């Protein structure tokens, strides 16, 4: 898949959340650790919400020179 190491995707974040929840489930977790786990979870959630960045995207067209331009759908009336 991705050749470069980028910020974790939603899938990785979900996996991390699973991990954190698992940690919170442990019987002998210390309160400090629990707080740390919880706040990390909250941060991950925030990242998830940012990742689903809720801005409607214009369709882009990749040009010959590798430039991106807005795609105008020639055929009207979808």
């Amino acid at each position, binding site marked *: *898949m*991705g*050749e*470069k190491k980028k910020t974790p*995707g*939603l*899938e990785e974040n*979900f996996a991390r*959340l699973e991990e*954190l*929840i698992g940690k*919170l*489930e442990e*019987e002998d*977790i210390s*309160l400090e650790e*629990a707080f740390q786990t*919880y706040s990390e*979870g*909250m941060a991950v*959630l925030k990242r*998830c*919400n940012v*990742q*689903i*960045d*809720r*801005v*409607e*995207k214009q*369709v*882009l*067209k*990749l040009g010959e020179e*590798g430039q*991106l331009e807005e*795609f105008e*759908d*020639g*055929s009207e009336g*979808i």
Partner: protein
Amino acid sequence: MFAQDYLLRSLYIKGEVSNCKYHSSGHIYFTLKDAKGTINCVMFAGSRKGLSFRMSEGQQVIVGGTVDVYERDGKYQLYAREIFLDGNGQLYEEYERLKRELREQGMFAQEYKQPIPRYIRTLGVVTAETGAAVRDVIRIANRRNPYVQVILYPAIVQGDAAAASIVKGIRALEALGVDVMIVGRGGGSIEDLWAFNDREVARVVFACKVPVISAVGHETDTTIIDYVADLRASTPSAAAELAVTDVREILGEVAAYQDTLEQFMERVIERKREQMRHLELGLKAVSPAGRLRERKMMVITAEERIRERMNRVLQAKRHELAIYIEKMKGLSPLEKLNQGYSYVEDGDGNNIRSVEQVKVGQSIGIRVKDGQIQATVEKKKSLR
């Protein structure tokens, strides 16, 4: 008779398609004609895999099948098993050869298939800039998740330049780093779809680091890249469905994670509180105040016990004393007098216990219960 004829059971007839009807049952009825004559043909729904294009009027085809009599009409007809476009015989062979070759190279192997990520942010599309395919993909992607960035590489999808254009498009989108790409086009004749049977296109799709969903033509069309792609969609619309997870589903998942996280945190805190209460109780038990109280209690109980013991001893002694008093009473000389005995003494107050102690004529005192008697000894007599 027909059915026993070996030749009629497996033959190929060349001709032009006319009166072609796709019946809703899936069967296809058509007539095959050439300069000299016609024959009615039927391809049953169950044999449809023998047809890889959409038949239309006027096409030159080769039909392979069985000739038999249709008893109701008393006419013989051709039951088609496979149909090829004539002139495409060569194309078809080429397709089969390439398919075999790539399969042998392992390019269709399941182990090379990359999973399609469930959450994508950018979707690349390699297809024609105009036409139903691109519109279908955009419409469905937008409907499912308008926040996904669709990036189109406007490719030439048919004709001589198509294969090179598609290769370029896949490479360009791969270099751009989209999360998933859809490569395809709408339906068409076998020639129209030919670029998707190209060796180079297949190689690029196979090597592409971005997961590729192929989406060529209609459901019945299968091209080489369908075998090579990480996932095959029957149509461009279906490809968009497969590529883009509904955003509501994702948001729901995020919300669920949040809920779970909060719930578990609360549970941890509740557990800690419980532990604290427990420890508090334990601590109270060992605190100095607690100890002091405990000591006091011990002193009090000890005192009570001592007192009780003491009382018991006193009582016992008192009881004993009473018994003694009773006994003493029994022994008192006055008591004896009470019982009818009397006490005799001489003039000096000595108790007279023997006849030897008195002389005749001596005065003696006799004590009885209620007084004293003064008497004189008149006579004495020894019992021995």
